[in-house]
């Protein structure tokens, strides 16, 4: 016989029900439509990487770079004063190793630019949202794709400007970032100028090298390997255009993308090996040449193994400034007889032209990986004070 249904009669019973009901009601409140930020009273239009117009408030309240380091922005705008947020502490460490931090040491030093919490992939999209909101920038700038923070920010009608995301090659990315970033600070001519000088360097190289007239071209493989961790073998496959411009063939052409291992690389048997030297404890030429796995390669026998230009100094982001120099460096390794040694000079010129910063010899050594490549052949032309009266016809 049920005396009292659900025990609610006694007020003490009702007391226990209160937290359940309250939590339920508050949870319901979450399902209201998300708040939207109002459009700015006065604004100007900047077009993002897909050409879509974005409203940026006037007066301009600065840039928050989201999801990457600010070197791209700085290279294209030379405007560190507009930076409101640059990244998290990890990003700061990364930035410290880049050439751009030499030019803009104040960006590296300013703590307020870097004090967002650590952003890990596994965290939800709102990990740094709170901090970013507190900064209140005029625009959030960065890469737009998939699970990026920008996509989430856009949900709230916050001012978001994607400077790249849908491009296929590194060159296209560089062009897009240059154009959007320079348009953002109101000087689109800066971006066009950078693109023009990038093209000019490539044009000069083509005139000198004339790759289309070559009958035989050495094959090259860009890879990463570690003698300590045998699983860390990977092959880079995004540089086919650069290889062509440098007068080389891609040794990995025709091979499936997945499944790179030592056996397969021995089968590819490139003439030249370029080491990316990042990730998985990857190592440089010295360890590579002593690793028994690679003794059978042509490149090992002829000691044509090199750590890639700018890997340490630029952390793989040569960008519009140094990509042409990197390609020239590859070309000079592959065809020393056809090219004057100009990489050092060109590096210095490019840095000065783009940033007004004069690199010293040590810094250029770092850029050209002189120390790492000292055991390989054909690198004497890259050391400082190299004297060559005329280029010699190499027997190789």
């Amino acid at each position, binding site marked *: 016989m049920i005396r009292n249904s*659900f*025990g609610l009669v006694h007020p*003490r019973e009702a*007391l*226990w*029900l*209160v*937290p*359940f009901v*309250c*939590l*339920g*009601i*508050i*949870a*319901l*409140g*979450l*399902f*209201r439509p*998300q*708040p*939207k*930020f*109002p459009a700015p009273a006065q604004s100007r239009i900047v077009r993002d990487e897909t050409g879509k117009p974005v409203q940026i408030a006037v007066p301009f309240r600065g840039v928050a770079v989201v999801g990457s380091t600010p070197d791209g922005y700085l290279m294209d705008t030379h405007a560190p004063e507009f930076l409101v947020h640059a990244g998290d502490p990890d990003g700061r460490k990364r930035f410290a190793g880049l050439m751009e931090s030499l030019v803009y040491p104040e960006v590296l030093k300013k703590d307020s630019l870097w004090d967002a*919490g*650590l952003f*890990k*992939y*596994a*965290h*939800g*999209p*709102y*990990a740094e*949202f*709170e*901090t970013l*909101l*507190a900064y*209140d920038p005029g625009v959030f700038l960065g890469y737009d794709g998939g699970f990026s923070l920008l996509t989430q920010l856009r949900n*709230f009608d916050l001012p978001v400007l994607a400077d790249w995301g849908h491009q296929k090659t590194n060159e296209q990315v560089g062009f897009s970032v240059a154009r959007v970033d320079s348009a953002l600070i109101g000087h689109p001519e800066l971006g066009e100028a950078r693109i023009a000088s990038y093209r000019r360097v490539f044009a000069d190289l083509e005139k000198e090298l004339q790759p289309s007239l070559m009958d035989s071209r050495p094959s090259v493989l860009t890879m990463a390997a570690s003698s300590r961790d045998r699983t860390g073998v990977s092959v880079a496959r995004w540089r086919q255009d650069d290889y062509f411009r440098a007068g080389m063939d891609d040794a990995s052409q025709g091979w499936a993308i997945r499944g790179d291992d030592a056996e397969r690389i021995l089968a590819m048997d490139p003439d030249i090996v370029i080491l990316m030297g990042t990730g998985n404890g990857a190592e440089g030429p010295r360890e590579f040449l002593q690793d028994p796995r690679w003794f059978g390669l042509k490149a090992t026998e002829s000691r044509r193994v090199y750590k890639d230009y700018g890997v340490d100094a630029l952390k793989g982001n040569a960008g519009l400034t140094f990509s042409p120099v990197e390609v020239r460096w590859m070309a000079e390794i592959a065809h020393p007889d056809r090219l004057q040694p100009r990489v050092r000079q060109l590096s210095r010129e490019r840095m000065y032209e783009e940033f007004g910063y004069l690199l010293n010899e040590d810094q250029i050594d770092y850029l050209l990986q002189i120390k790492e490549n000292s055991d390989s052949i054909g690198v004497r032309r890259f050391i400082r004070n190299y004297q060559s009266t005329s280029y010699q016809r190499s027997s190789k």
Partner: protein
Amino acid sequence: MTEMTIVAKTLPVTPIPMKLSDKWFGWAIPLLLDVGVLVAVLASLCIGAYPMSFGQAARIVMHLAWPGPLPANPPWSVKEITVVQVIRLPRVLLATLAGLGLGISGTALQAMMRNPLVGPDIVGVSSGAAFGGVLAMLWDFSPAGIIGLAFCGGMLAMACTFSLAKLSEADTDSMIQILAGVFIGAFFLALIDLIKHLANDAQLPTMAYWLLGTFVGADAKKVAMIAVPTLCAGAVLMTMRWRLNLLSLGDIDAKTLGMNVAMLRWLIIGLVSLIVASQVAVSGLVGWVGLVVPHIARMLVGPDHRRLLPTAGLLGALFVLSLDDLTRALLKAEIPVGVLTALVGTPVICFLLWKSQGKGWGCE
């Protein structure tokens, strides 16, 4: 003898003696806990990188909860309501509901198994639910699929535990039961490792971080996923809380008192599995809460489940919420909550063991 009978039948109603602390406990503790949880929720909304005052948080939450449209000229900025509604409130609610569910489940399990040393992690239901969850992640299921599979995994694990114990013909209150739970739990943990091995590079970090137990990445959908099962199943368990007293007596005793023990036991297993599975599905493995919190609650209000169950639930909510606040605010490195509950829970239970000296744990 006959005179005694007549006298007995005409005695006035015997007054129920009340200890002074009883009167107190009757009202003070529930009131304190209710208010405490609500205040804790609001206070937690003030923790974070963006500045927020208690009053502002309270105002926003009240308007969010109250039915009807939000005011046109609100006393808060768009940023403030974004921070509350989109970022902090989901996470705070997630932590609170997880703690509530685990506290209630732990208490119900301890009553059902007549052993104060059990919790959802020991019975294997957490591991089973976690296995279901990572399996769903491996097969790229939607969030609803994850919770569904997590629930199935939890039920499966519980069924295995109880069947295993039954096979060895052990009484439901023996050490065999607990060992069965440990074995089944370990088995599912091994299966989880297998799944981690099979996962590809994109899935693995998500899985690994999720398994550690975390409330990061909370959103409205996840809150719904945990709120509905926890509040509903929790409410049902709350109405049955007096029955837990009976269950804790023993199978034969409970049966002879007129209870359908088998049906009740399976009902409780189902409800506990649902609550724990929903918690594991949205936040991974958060252990120790279901074991430690009922103990503390028992020390506060005694073993009568009419008081114990809600107290344990609310204490659990406070416990998990405060740990999540800790990891959010002070420890910028975001230590997963599951790690913290283990780090805090273990010494707490050792301390309880020492302090109580066996009292209230079993009167053998």
